[in-house]
């Protein structure tokens, strides 16, 4: 678990299985590399982006786990999705106008992700696979929408403060 208490960060603190702030001289894992936290001060949108990336990675790992994901794995994923959705929702009011629509879309996908993961807990066989795949698709869509919100914010800031 990595805890980051930066100003503007709305409370999503559990990062879980993906190493954030990785230094490239660390041991290779063949895993997600998101060493973006050390060099810049990040705002809440960046943290939400990291959370959705982490969520996608975790669901992807659960989907590929030999022997299948455990109940505990899925419960943790549902919690991650819920926490990410709540952080994104809480952050909406503070975001640049250009980013709000994308972030609102991301919230919708995060809530859908949580719903599908919860469904997977109650199902088995093909229904389970379908629920996990839907969760993965919605997690990917949420990461895309948050990323587009980041792009919109950066573009707006760039126009306001040309380099």
């Amino acid at each position, binding site marked *: 678990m990595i805890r980051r208490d930066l100003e503007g960060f709305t409370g999503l603190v559990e990062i879980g299985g993906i190493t954030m702030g990785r230094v490239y001289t660390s041991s*290779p894992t063949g895993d997600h590399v998101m060493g973006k936290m050390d060099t810049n001060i990040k705002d809440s949108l960046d943290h939400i982006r990291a959370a959705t990336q982490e969520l996608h990675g975790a669901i992807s790992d659960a989907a590929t786990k030999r022997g299948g994901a455990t109940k505990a794995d899925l419960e943790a994923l549902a919690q991650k999705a819920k926490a990410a959705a709540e952080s994104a929702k809480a952050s909406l009011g503070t975001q640049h106008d250009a980013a709000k629509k994308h972030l609102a879309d991301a919230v919708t996908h995060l809530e859908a992700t949580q719903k599908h993961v919860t469904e997977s807990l109650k199902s088995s066989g093909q229904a389970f696979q379908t629920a996990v*795949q839907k969760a993965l698709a919605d997690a990917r869509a949420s990461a895309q929408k948050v990323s587009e919100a980041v792009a919109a914010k950066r573009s707006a800031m760039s126009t306001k403060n040309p380099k």
Partner: protein
Amino acid sequence: MHNYIAVVFDNTSKAYEGLHALWQLDDAAEVTVHGTAVVHRDAMGNFQVDTKETHPALATAAGVGVGALLGLLAGPAGAAVGAAGGAAIGAAAGGAVGITADLVRADTRDQAAGETRFVLGAGQSAVIADVSEDWTSPIDTRMRSLGGIVYRRAKSDMEDDVWFDDYYIPSSYLYPYEYIPSSYYYSW
């Protein structure tokens, strides 16, 4: 501007160097990267996309999705063949993408509008990415310094391709973070 890019390198190590550089540009807020994947073409001409070990259904979907994306990068006519080829090969072998964008292009030279001249030759690797960029120079300059050749199509142009519809999201099968398989981690 929202673009899809393919950066072609002469070998896999350079491709991963390019992938890392792309995410570094994102970290520096020079561009925003929405998703990436690394694709190889072997000496036999077969395409392979680097993915995590995955469920066969997901591998097939990735084959279809990335195959279609490569076709889209090749141009309007390449899009349809890319989707079909990706589906056929993706269904047969997880994660493999079977399109021949260069052969597709050979038949479509009269339809140059929208073409990128994207060709992935035998033995080459490419970084495929979905990016937002206000200027093309950060990516072009950085990739050129690594020996990469950048091909670019605007998302809006790709949406104009005949078969493209709201149900297909080209970036769905790209990783929304920097993913480097362990076998390549220390190769550069």
